[in-house]
């Protein structure tokens, strides 16, 4: 309870959040079987926040049952046009209703958005292989446009169940034979092994689509140089664990040669400080980044506002004032 109370107090002191805006739906139009393109704009015509290829936004949606759902959709328009955002949304038959709520939007409706943020940035390269499966084409559309504009050598393999299910294929036609469309009912499964057979140090692979495609591309890219493969999974953001669920864990301070215990109701920072190990700390609310500490081992439960998703996943650093450990033991470079 101490931890929960402390968190509640400090949250009122500094609030770090993402940009939110209530945008108006300008257009909703079908672009393929089960897929609509949605255009959003500021109701007063103000410019929208800038973004780069690979970025996505949250839509805060309401289902028929009145339940609030937050869903992420890639921006698939033109980053140079800050008067509107375009999203491509597939109606998910087995979903909880987020995509159905998007499909039910009509021009004039208002939607709350958060972001944009970008966990799938396009890194400069002389050559790209883009691989899209189904609605995974959306983040790749602005990437293809940017790669083309910068004069990079690129190809896109775009697979789908059928030609009619493949959104934005018409827009890609202008790129000629750089784009290979692979409707499964016509050409079968695309030959990913052939596409990725030749690892090249000058080439980056960008892939977005269903889990099966991502897993296959990931497997085939193990022979590629580290960092060559960039993937985006369409999955919900991990939820914060409920307060009160904190557990005790063992804390090893590698440089100090100490093994300590972090009880459920104390922070790593407090335990380290009590042990007489010198650590910097300031805000003690996961905001300022002063107590950032290198992680040697352990599955960190990141609760700060400092690290982004990539940095959290990398598990290299943590803010010891608020973050904890999911595994039984945490080892820090202290």
């Amino acid at each position, binding site marked *: 309870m101490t931890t929960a109370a402390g968190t509640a107090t400090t949250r009122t002191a500094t609030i770090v959040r993402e940009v939110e805006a209530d945008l108006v739906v300008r257009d909703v139009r079908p672009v393929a079987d089960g897929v609509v393109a949605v255009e959003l704009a500021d109701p007063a015509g103000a410019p929208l926040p800038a973004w780069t290829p690979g970025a996505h936004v949250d839509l805060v949606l309401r289902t028929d049952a009145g339940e609030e759902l937050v869903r992420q959709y890639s921006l698939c328009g033109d980053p140079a046009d800050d008067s509107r955002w375009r999203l491509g949304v597939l109606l998910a038959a087995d979903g909880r209703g987020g995509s159905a709520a998007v499909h039910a939007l009509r021009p004039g409706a208002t939607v709350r958005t958060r972001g944009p943020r970008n966990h799938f940035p396009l890194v400069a390269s002389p050559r790209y292989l883009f691989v899209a499966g189904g609605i995974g084409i959306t983040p790749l559309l602005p990437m293809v*446009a940017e790669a083309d504009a910068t004069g990079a050598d690129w190809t896109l393999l775009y697979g789908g169940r059928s030609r009619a299910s493949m959104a934005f294929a018409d827009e890609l036609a202008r790129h000629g034979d750089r784009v290979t469309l692979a409707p499964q009912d016509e050409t079968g499964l695309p030959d990913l092994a052939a596409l990725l057979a030749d690892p090249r140090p000058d080439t980056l692979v960008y892939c977005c689509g269903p889990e099966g495609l991502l897993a296959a591309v990931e497997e085939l890219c193990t022979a590629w140089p580290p960092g060559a493969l960039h993937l985006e999974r369409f999955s919900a953001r991990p939820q914060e664990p409920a307060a009160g669920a904190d557990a005790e864990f063992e804390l090893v301070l590698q440089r100090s040669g100490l093994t300590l215990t972090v009880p459920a109701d104390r922070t790593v920072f407090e335990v380290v400080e009590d042990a007489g190990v010198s650590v910097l700390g300031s805000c003690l609310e996961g905001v300022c980044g002063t107590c950032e500490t290198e992680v040697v081992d352990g599955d960190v439960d990141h609760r700060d506002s400092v690290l982004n998703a990539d*940095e959290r996943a990398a598990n290299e650093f943590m803010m010891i004032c608020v973050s904890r450990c999911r595994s039984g033991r945490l080892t820090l470079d202290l």
Partner: protein
Amino acid sequence: MATANAGPGRGYPVNAWYVLARSDEVGGRPLGRRVADTPVVAYRTAGGTAVALEDRCAHRPYPLSLGRVAGDTIVSGYTGFVYGPDGVCVSVPTQDRVPHGARVRAFPVHDDGTFVRVWTGDPALAARRVPPRTPWLRDAGWATVGDRLDTAANVVLLHENFADITHVAVVDPFIAPPALHGPPPPLEVALSETSVSFSRQYAPAPLADWHAAALGLPADARHPQRETGAFVAPGLWVNTWEVQVAGVEPVPTFRFTHAITPVDAGHTAHEWRVSRNFALDAATDATLAPIFAEYYRRVRGVLETMQAVVDRDGPRREVAVAADAAVLAVRRLLAQEPAGENGTRRRRTAARA
């Protein structure tokens, strides 16, 4: 590298729109400036179009800015080589044939009537990134004073300054709003992929004497006040200070525009503008201009001193406070250079010396 607190690296992205000059500074005489460690010469063609070229003749290392403009072209003041607005050499004095491939870089330019902005990074990306907009600087509803300060400090030190103005009360007690004395109210920071903004709502507090006078309010008036700031782009900060006087619309607001341009790793050009939507008369201009000029000169002195310390003794891991939330977010954006640079996104290296 003298990059203050941004860790290794120059501290700024090159794929960004930066202010090169005021629009009225670019004309029929060549203007030489340095942007993102690149020499740039600007001029206007006979038709009035702003042009920005690499400020170095292709034949000898002599700046084109020391030459002259002739019609749509610029002529080297030493070699006599003549270049068109696209940077291609169109004639040389010593032979009829123009040497094959003789040219200088031509940079994408955006001229909005207030500032001429230039893009010295990948030219193909320029058309795909919207230049920042500052329409209030040309809006009759706002009156503006300002100046340019060439500052011997890395651009990151300027970003950090505009991301947290709680130092104003220390740097310049005369100008500081009394609301800034004592612990500040909660800070709200809002992030997007490319921007950081922050705000604080202050309880009713008195105003500095000069501020109350400009607003036509009694010296002892107390009003709620609101501070906002936004890192709009790597070359632009827009901050505001509102005085929420009951019944007065629009809310009397100072809007602070900071066009900051990295010159090189140790120098930054700072075009500051202070705009207001009240007391638009010239007499108020004359009162306010020296007050803000003095404040920004003091800020420059502090920034240059910090740069000198870092140059002499190196960067060092710093103690941060909760009020630094916006500063840290900006450092992260700058450390995480956008796509199109350096081959990879780097992890934040702030304060990791």
